[in-house]
């Protein structure tokens, strides 16, 4: 396992397991929980269920990209609705690396 610090975030260069990705997404999304959605789950719809605007979604994606060393194109981000879909996308891109 290679863990490299690029100064801003810890970069994970091996293929991550699903639990790690889910945990990181939940950490990133925690500040955007609402009274209706206090627990973030796989089926949580990111823009609908949480108090997060599209710009903040893109900023969060940038953090995840640096954590898991993948790039998620903006048009792909636009199609993602749930936490599960986001995790799947990251795992798929990391595996292809």
């Amino acid at each position, binding site marked *: 396992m290679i863990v490299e610090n690029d100064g*801003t975030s810890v970069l994970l260069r091996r293929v991550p397991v699903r639990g790690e990705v889910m945990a990181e997404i939940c950490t990133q999304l925690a500040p955007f929980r609402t009274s209706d959605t206090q627990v973030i789950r796989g089926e949580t719809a990111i823009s609908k269920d949480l108090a997060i605007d599209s710009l903040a979604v893109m*900023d969060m994606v940038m953090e995840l990209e640096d954590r898991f060393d993948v790039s998620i194109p903006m048009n792909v981000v636009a199609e993602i609705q749930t936490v599960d879909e986001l995790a799947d996308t990251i795992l798929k891109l990391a595996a292809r*690396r």
Partner: protein
Amino acid sequence: MGLFDRHAGLLDAYRDVRTTGADPFQIRMERVLSPTEAIINGKTCLTVGTNNYFGLTFDPSCMQAAIDAIQAEGTGTTGSRIANGSYSEHVALEQEIAEFYGKKHCMVFTTGYQANLGVISTLVGQDDFLLIDADSHASIYDACKQTQAEVVRFKHNDPASLDARLRRLKDKNGGDKPGNRLVVLEGIYSMLGDSAPLKEFVEVCKKYGAYVLVDEAHSLGALGDNGRGLCESAGVLDDCHFIVGTFSKTLGAIGGYCVSNDPDFDILRVTTRAYMFTASLPPSIVASVRQALRVVRTRGAELRQQLWDNVHTLYDGLVAQGFKLGPEYGPVVGVHLPDRMMAIGFWRAMLDAGIYVNVAVPPATPNGVSLLRCSLCAVHTKEQLQHMIEVMTGIGRQMGVIGPQLKVAGGSR
């Protein structure tokens, strides 16, 4: 679901803004008196938010050139250059801009917005990659929606973040991914007035063979020994493959352009929809812009000095009073306020006191910050700016933004 239901959130926010009494998004300039004064709500106000960096909107030589052109060639071209042909003045303007940058080619657009939209979305296509700074202008984001290329965002002004993303494109499938990479940067960012670390960015782009496009909308005239912008002041004019700019700020009119040395550049004239399917600039605008460019070439050094003296007066004056500003000196000075309502309230109190600036609130701002956005003009006087600092200090104390009950302004970056 009704057509406007999707805007419910924005409508709520907008209602909040309007209930404060004045609507910053529907302000009416009853009469503009000069580059630094306008009558608003029946009162003569100081304007410090018009992007009129050299004050050329009222330059007698530019005004006269426009008047002469209207008399000679009428008010408008009534069509696009593809359909109706170019006037010789369009071509002359393009040659003069190309010459100004020492580049071979120039294309003029009807606005800077269209220049970015058209050029960026057309340069890259299927299998290419467009890499943009997270804080890019709306026109760049809109270009992303129009292109077939994959779009990747990197952290604002962070060459290491760009490097990581270009490296990943290289790593993919164990080898170089086919396709071109175009990196888009801005000379001066329009909200906080900070500049890109262009030299470092260019190094990264060279390492991966990526093309560089720089939008000098706010830096034309303001940066560089000849006023060419950040590309010039950073010493990388030759490494910037495409430079985009606007006539709507320093040059005091309207329109946009892109210059390049690429031998095939002119193909964009028959592929760029934002160029092909809209009317070309009217003769009066072309004439005033040509004259404004002459002013930049002949009196630029002096105007640039005045502008930067004013930048230092305002920036240092506000910092001394405890205001939290954008990270560096620049003709755009962003003043951080703790939240949206405070920004609107502050803006309105300044207007009541006879000073007009812009207010910028999310989602138009990076990182959700709320700002008073000030832009300086070479012809602001020191007295005008000292007065502004006094007024802002008074309001800042009343509102508890600065002074004894110092509140920490939000949205640090």
